[in-house]
């Protein structure tokens, strides 16, 4: 099943885009399958792939669930490659290599209550873990999701956020936007402050945070304030990457390569690393 390109890890497979969904004004989801059909390779929640067009390659978090014949990538338009990706249409062939990285602690989190904290496009990686929890609902306790974006329009995956997830058993979804808007009747304010306001009890919980680096920094501080222990605080890091396989050098923090040893770390591990994230 797995088509890991282990023989030539730097040479991509060719995959086909079978669907494109506009999530927000600057985020699109791309659904890809192997040329000729079928799943390119299995991916654990939190793992990533290198997607490429001739203009360049970039590392993106992948969403895939057992049984699906395709992978999904939610990609924000920020640079050269993502500009190009946002211009392509269904049927476009892309380069794809992976899966890379360690993924989320889905096994060790079993039996725990889950607290997911996300900002902006940071919901994309968490979403694969969230979906995994819902698919294996009895393996996990209460699920709390705290998510925020700059504006209502920037909230990703609205159907899941507002309809699918809140209707799941024993699940709370809390949404906030940075600044007030006429259309928005919900909470206004930054994610870390909202976390403190909601103050989810640390007992029996694993927290998983993903978002822009500045949000992560403050969210981790908020969690510590609320009494979360280092091993209960899980987050993902990102750095510029080129190879994805721990060779090209640039994504290191201390002796760890984010592409290979990460992107998922808990605070116990992060405290052993230089504060360069």
């Amino acid at each position, binding site marked *: 099943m797995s088509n890991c390109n*282990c*023989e*030539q*890890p*730097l*040479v*991509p497979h*060719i995959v086909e885009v079978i669907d494109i969904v506009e999530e927000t004004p600057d985020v699109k989801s791309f659904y890809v399958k192997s040329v000729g059909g079928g799943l390119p390779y299995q991916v654990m929640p939190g793992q990533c792939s290198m997607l490429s*067009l*001739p*203009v*360049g*390659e*970039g590392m993106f978090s992948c969403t895939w669930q057992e049984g699906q014949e395709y992978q999904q990538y939610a990609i924000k338009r*920020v*640079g*050269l*490659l*993502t500009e190009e990706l946002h211009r*392509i*249409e269904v*049927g*476009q*062939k*892309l*380069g794809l290599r992976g899966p890379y990285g360690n993924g989320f602690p889905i096994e060790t989190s079993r039996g725990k209550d889950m607290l997911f904290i996300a900002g902006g496009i940071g919901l994309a990686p968490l979403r694969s873990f969230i979906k995994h929890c819902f698919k294996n609902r009895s393996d996990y306790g209460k699920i709390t999701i705290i998510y925020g974006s700059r504006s209502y329009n920037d909230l990703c995956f609205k159907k899941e956020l507002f309809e699918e997830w809140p209707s799941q058993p024993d699940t709370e979804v809390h949404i906030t936007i940075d600044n007030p808007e006429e259309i928005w009747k919900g909470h206004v304010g930054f994610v870390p402050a909202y976390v403190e306001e909601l103050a989810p009890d640390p007992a029996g919980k694993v927290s998983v945070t993903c978002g*822009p*680096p500045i949000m992560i920094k403050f969210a981790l501080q908020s969690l510590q304030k609320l009494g979360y222990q280092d091993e209960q605080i899980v987050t993902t890091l*990102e*750095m*510029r990457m*080129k*190879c994805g*396989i*721990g*060779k*090209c*050098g*640039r994504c*290191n*923090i*201390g*002796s760890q390569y984010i592409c*290979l040893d990460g992107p998922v770390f808990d605070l116990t591990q992060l405290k052993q690393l*230089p*504060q*360069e*994230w």
Partner: protein
Amino acid sequence: MKILAKDKVQALLDKIAQQATVYVPMAIEQGSGFYPWNEDNKEKPLLLDALNVYNSPKYVVFPQTERMYDLKQQGQELSIDKTYEDSSERVIFGVRACDARAMRSLDDVFLTRGFEDSFYKARRDNVTVIGNACYNPGVNCFCGAMGVAMTEPETDVIIRDTGNDGYIWEAKTEKGEKLTALVAEFLVDKELKYPEAKSFTTQVDYEGVAEKLKSMFDHPLWQKMAEPCVNCGACTYICPSCHCFDIQVKMWGDSGYRFRCWDSCMYAEYSAEAGGGNPRPTGVERFRQRFLHKLEFFNERYGYSLCTGCGRCTIVCPAGVRITDIINEIKEVDSSVEL
């Protein structure tokens, strides 16, 4: 023991060159480095007596620019038609212990910890290395302080210069035995005394430095040490163990190729993110990254220093940054001082 007479060296190189590309230390124009032993180069001066030539043999296994695969795009179609793993036979003659250690660090990076880099592996598997043991370290040499044994280069064959009597030739690996069999006609059996090793003139004390650096990430010393550095990257290009690379593309219309090329942690673009962030925004962070990688991070991951004490960066640095001074300063400073 087997002895290679000095006047047989060229004939031996000719013989190997019939089967493989042979790289030898030579002076060409203003520079020196490892160049192919071929008709064009044969007349140029062989530098077997020099300690370190200017350019290390790193590029033989890890070229400065390496084409990886061809790309073609037509409309929505995309194809990769050809990959360029190069497995032709190569022999590097006269590698010093520092550069041999650097090659071991490249092996560890490219061939271990989860993934094998197929482009590196194709080259490396088909390279035989003949080391030239050092007995008289130069003024910039400090490999001994970095845990490298100058008289025992980690290579397939070791040659030891005994002076006028020729080189002692010792095969150290299976590849080395194979090469020895190929050149048997140039080797004679004779007993010679090993040359006597002289001591280092550059004094460096790396003992405990990697461990000490673990608590010095935010130390003000970095600011001071980085001050003269202009982030030109010369040290990273001349370094035999620097292995960072970029992946880039060259397209002419619909077709082209993806290649990798040496990159340098000295440049802002190296770690600049598409979203606008950069975890190493100024020269100080980049300087710190380079030296911590050499002296601490690599050690933590692979068990030995990434600096092999070859001294090249000291020679090329236009700003007078000396890694030996850096090591000694770290050794001396009070590590508890924080910003």
